[in-house]
């Protein structure tokens, strides 16, 4: 059994390594994305602003005027203390308590800078005073916040399309049929594909991580082992998603559609680029069903907060259990032809 898995593993690796365009694409694209977004979000202002309002005190006077400002999304929170980390992590640009006139701001937040100007302007002739409080702890820039998500997203593309397309192509052109005429079993074939894609994804993303560390200064407070564990489990989970998609399809066009159906919602609803803070509750609940949400959140907790295994165990558990379920489904419905 292991000999057969090893043979398929080696063959798939050779195929991938020698397909230079695919290899270059899978390495260059995420690097380009990182640089583009690192530049875009540290140098320029995002277009949307979010302000957290402590709802215990209803806005009145200048606070009410500020709360009517267009193009700012106001999100109600129960208290300030439990939500300061959202300012720290750029999930909201500013946290404002209308009752006390206090507001919390992250000095490195470009959105926070703009929103603060608007807040101060609203209070200018009112005679009421504002109290400015900078968030305590290390500053977290957007690039610190976005990098874990971008790496997770890169894993998602590599896993879903890397495994899905290959299997569908193998099926379409009869490679799977030829393999089915050998003693190789479906489980052996799938294991070899998972292992091959897994190590390639892990190595590629480790290289990207190291490369980014050299060129972009970003925050990494947690254990590298924990981060590797998160990304490895994320790879396995997303590869298994790809397996389920590719289990029966024999048309690349159909596979492309289904893989996009999986990937694009994850891209926008997993909090890779922007926080879902303030989004409709059903959307936030739906996001928890997406594996990329757990990979991104767990990676952020490790990299930004220095979280340990215990703190991220809920994400790991979700990823681990769903991987097993997906693998089981994939193996059950897999067809050689």
């Amino acid at each position, binding site marked *: 059994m292991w*000999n*057969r898995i*090893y*043979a*398929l593993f*080696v*063959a*798939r690796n*050779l*195929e991938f*390594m*020698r*397909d230079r365009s695919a290899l270059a694409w899978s390495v260059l694209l995420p690097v380009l994305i990182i640089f583009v977004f690192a530049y875009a979000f540290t140098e320029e202002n995002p277009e949307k602003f979010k302000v957290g309002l402590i709802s215990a005190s209803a806005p009145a006077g200048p606070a009410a005027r500020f709360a009517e400002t267009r193009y700012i999304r106001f999100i109600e929170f129960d208290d300030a203390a439990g939500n300061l980390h959202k300012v720290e992590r750029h999930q909201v640009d500013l946290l404002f308590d209308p009752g006390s006139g206090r507001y919390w701001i992250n000095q490195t937040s470009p959105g926070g800078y703009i929103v603060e100007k608007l807040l101060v302007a609203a209070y200018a002739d009112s005679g009421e005073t504002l109290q400015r409080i900078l968030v305590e702890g290390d500053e977290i820039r957007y690039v610190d916040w976005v990098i874990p998500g971008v790496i997770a997203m890169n894993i998602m593309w590599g896993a879903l399309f890397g495994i899905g397309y290959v299997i569908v192509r*193998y099926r379409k*052109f*009869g*490679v799977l*049929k*030829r393999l*089915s*005429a*050998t*003693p*190789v079993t479906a489980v052996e074939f799938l294991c070899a594909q998972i292992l091959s894609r897994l190590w390639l994804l892990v190595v590629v993303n480790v290289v990207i991580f190291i490369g980014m560390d050299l060129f972009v200064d970003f925050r990494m407070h947690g254990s590298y082992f924990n981060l590797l564990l998160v990304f490895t489990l994320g790879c396995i989970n997303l590869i298994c998603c790809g397996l389920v998609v590719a289990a029966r399809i024999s048309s690349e066009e159909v596979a492309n559609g289904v893989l996009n159906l999986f990937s694009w919602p994850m891209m926008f609803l997993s909090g890779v680029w922007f926080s879902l803070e303030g989004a409709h509750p059903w959307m936030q609940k739906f996001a928890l069903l997406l594996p990329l949400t757990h990979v991104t959140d767990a990676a952020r907790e490790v990299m930004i907060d220095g979280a340990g295994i215990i703190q991220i165990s809920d994400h790991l558990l979700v990823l681990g259990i769903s991987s097993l379920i997906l693998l089981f489904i994939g193996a059950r419905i897999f067809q*050689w*032809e």
Partner: protein
Amino acid sequence: MPTSKLGKVVLPTQPVYTLPSLVEITMSVILQVSNLVKRFGSLTAVNDVSFEIRQGSCFGLLGPNGAGKTTTIEMMEGIKAPDAGEILYRGAALSQQFRNEAGIMFQTTALQEFITVREIMVQFSRFYPDTASIDELADRYALHDFLNQDTRKLSGGQKQRLLLAMALINNPRILFLDEPTTGLDPQSRRNLWKQVQQVKQQGATILLTTHYMEEAYELCDEIAIMDHGRIIAHDAPDALLAAHFDDVVVQLHAADIPREIGEREFQAIYRNDNAHIVTGDVNRTIEHLLHLDIPLDRLRIRARDLEDLFLELTGKELRA
């Protein structure tokens, strides 16, 4: 006894018939197919097919495109599940032992890309417990010239030789060849025949599907002719011909004998630019042709072949 190879001008004096030898009769059955049925929606592709393949023999499934031979062979290979019927390999249902002992060459096979011929051979050799030496296979099937070449860059003949070598990597006891020479030029086809004959000489049992009658006649000890999913004739090639024909074909170029004359005077059949006159009395037929001033420069006399047999049995041509 004269041998009536297809395509040669041979005048048989007696019906050609080869009795199976005692050794052949006592050969054990390696693969047994009973009442096999396969349906695709409302189409019954294989309809109650039964036969046995003797160990060490070459068994040919002959039929036109769509006759059901590939579906039949794929069920025997374990690739497709039959809707009804039974397939026994050495007396038992198909199992891992069958997978280890069967060599399979599909009609069309894509190989993994960016892999060299040697690497794909190494990969396949790791699938089996008992394997042939890659270098020996490369010698035997002339793979050395392109052993380190990407599989995408092989010619049709090179690819067929590689696929045959891959099918033999596990020293198979039974070898399935599904239209192995389709698309090959005549020289490559004959080379492949030689290689298949070598495999047979080494003791392997061969199941071959083809729509080339010459190929079936050249390689097979026994043939089954399929049409519309059923076996319509089954025996040794010469025995089938002997059982159905005691006449010969006088063949003229269609341009030499006007169709109305050919059909009226000789009940000639026109196909492939030729007029085929079936006759039991060659001298009388030639006399009649001379009497009608038909030019005989391009006249050929040949024994009836499997294509004639198929035409006789089904009313259509094998390569249709």
